[in-house]
């Protein structure tokens, strides 16, 4: 056996120095590891037995995150982790962990734990299998990361999305309901309109039938009164004049019914639109009127008017009525003048009939065009108050308008405007 030499001492010293330096390295490594593990505020680093899942190490951050002392993780039985899993997640997590470990797979899963103060803490757990030299899994090591904030944000986002989806669904439902309401509203309007039209048709049919019967009765009264007059040898003058009155009154009433029937008919007969030469219509109307004027003089001053698009018969009635009115209301004058003028106004032709007759009070202008309205006594001017109402109805059926201007004693002016007939290239 050799004695201890200074070389040996040196060697031993160097050995210890190395040991020391290794120990120092180890100590500083462990300190680094500890600092690293403890410095993860949201993460629990853990180690557990692979079979029993008894915890062998849990980093101190566990207490900060869940509120239980770390010792509880080691001491609670059967198992701290299983005890404090959210009841709804417990079976799923335990079974998942077992299956994955048995299959030798590292695994990751999310679940809820109940903290000491009752808070729910969302964990994202990553578990790694640790094997011995023979390859048998002996331990599980892992990280439980507190993802509560992330989950809350996700949940809030999901809730916001859900609210948005619900709001959109509500809006769509409201829109559908509105569409349905509109559809039924249109249907209801259609039903009401058709009921109204039906009622209107029935009323028209009824009044037409009643008017015809009324006219027949008036005609019989007038006709038999006339026959009575003819054979009234036995009647004195007074009786004969009474019979004459009966006849006149029934004829006037019959004429009123005729005008009513015509007004009603003009309201619904279909328009037969074609180009209508107004100059010819005015000429014909004047020729027709001339024999009714009698002894006095009426000068017609007619300019070239043009063509309109409309129903010839209806336009003729309009022109005839306006000219008849002009002649009628100039009756007190021994010599009267009636002017007829035409001018283009945009797409319309405006026709004006002006007379120098008695005129009318402008405040009654609107009433002029109402049926059965008269502004003068029957004794002064014959008529039923239907002519101008017919004029308005016929012009309106042609999508036109009619108006009047006057001063009492200063004559009257009646105008109407209806679409002009388009003539090849001319404007």
């Amino acid at each position, binding site marked *: 056996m050799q004695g201890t030499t200074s070389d040996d001492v040196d060697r031993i010293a160097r050995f210890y120095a190395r040991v020391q330096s290794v120990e120092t390295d180890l100590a500083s490594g462990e300190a680094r590891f500890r600092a690293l593990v403890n410095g993860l505020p949201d993460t629990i680093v853990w180690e557990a037995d692979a079979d029993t899942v008894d915890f062998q190490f849990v980093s101190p951050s566990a207490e900060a995150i869940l509120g239980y002392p770390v010792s509880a993780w080691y001491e609670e039985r059967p198992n701290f982790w299983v005890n404090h899993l959210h009841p709804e997640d417990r079976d799923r997590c335990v079974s998942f962990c077992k299956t994955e470990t048995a299959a030798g797979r590292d695994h990751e899963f999310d679940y809820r734990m109940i903290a000491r103060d009752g808070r729910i803490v969302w964990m994202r757990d990553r578990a790694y299998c640790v094997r011995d030299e023979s390859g048998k899994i002996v331990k599980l090591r892992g990280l439980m990361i507190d993802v509560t904030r992330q989950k809350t944000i996700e949940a809030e986002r999901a809730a916001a999305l859900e609210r948005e989806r619900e709001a959109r669904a509500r809006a769509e439902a409201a829109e559908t309901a509105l569409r349905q309401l509109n559809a039924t509203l249109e249907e209801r309007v259609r039903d009401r309109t058709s009921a109204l039209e039906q009622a209107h048709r029935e009323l028209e049919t009824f009044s037409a039938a009643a008017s015809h019967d009324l*006219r*027949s009765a*008036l005609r019989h009264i007038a006709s038999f009164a*006339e026959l009575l007059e003819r054979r009234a040898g036995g009647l004195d003058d007074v009786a004969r004049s009474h019979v004459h009155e009966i006849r006149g009154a029934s*004829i006037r009433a019959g004429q009123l019914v005729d005008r009513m029937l015509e007004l009603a*008919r003009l309201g619904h007969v279909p328009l037969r639109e074609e180009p209508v030469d107004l100059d010819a219509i005015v000429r014909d109307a004047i020729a027709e009127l001339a024999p009714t004027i009698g002894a006095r003089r009426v000068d017609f001053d007619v300019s070239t008017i043009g063509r309109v698009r409309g129903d010839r018969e209806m336009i003729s009635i309009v022109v005839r009525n306006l000219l008849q009115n002009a002649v009628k209301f100039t009756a007190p004058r021994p010599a009267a003048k009636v002017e007829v003028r035409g001018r283009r106004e945009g797409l319309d032709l405006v026709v004006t009939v002006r007379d120098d007759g008695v005129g009318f009070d402008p405040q009654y202008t609107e009433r002029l065009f109402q049926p059965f309205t008269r502004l003068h006594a029957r004794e002064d001017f014959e008529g039923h108050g239907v002519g101008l109402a017919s004029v308005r109805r016929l012009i309106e059926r042609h999508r036109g308008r009619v108006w009047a201007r006057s001063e009492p004693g200063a004559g009257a002016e009646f105008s109407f405007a209806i679409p002009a007939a388009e003539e090849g290239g001319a404007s």
Partner: protein
Amino acid sequence: MSKPILLVDDSAADVALAMEALSELRLDDHVAVARDGEQALSFLRRDGSHSERAEGNPCVVILDVKMPRMSGFEVLSAIRSDPRLSRVPVVMLSTSADRADVERSYALGANGYVVKSLSFSEFSGRLRDLGRYWTAANEPPPGSVVPRA
């Protein structure tokens, strides 16, 4: 009996007025009257109560437009679709000169259209003209009954 004129009108008063007008021409004896469409067709076809009637169509049928049950238009259609009657002149008689009624009458084959005017003198004038024309001025279709002079 066969007559040169057949007047068809449901109204007793209208028949009386028409007869009054025709009497001025001394034609009233030459008028057969039917009070509705069925009677008119029965007269023209010589069936029913008219089966004993002598042969011959009237020179003119004066036919009221508005009648209960069978309208003047329906009677006119029946006349025009019967080969034995299709040439018989028919003049419609109406309370109004409604454009649609006038057109329909001519479309169905009427030979004339007369409005029952409110004034009797006007009406009787029209009816006299009508009677004179169809029974005297006009040469009726062969086989028609003409008034004996």
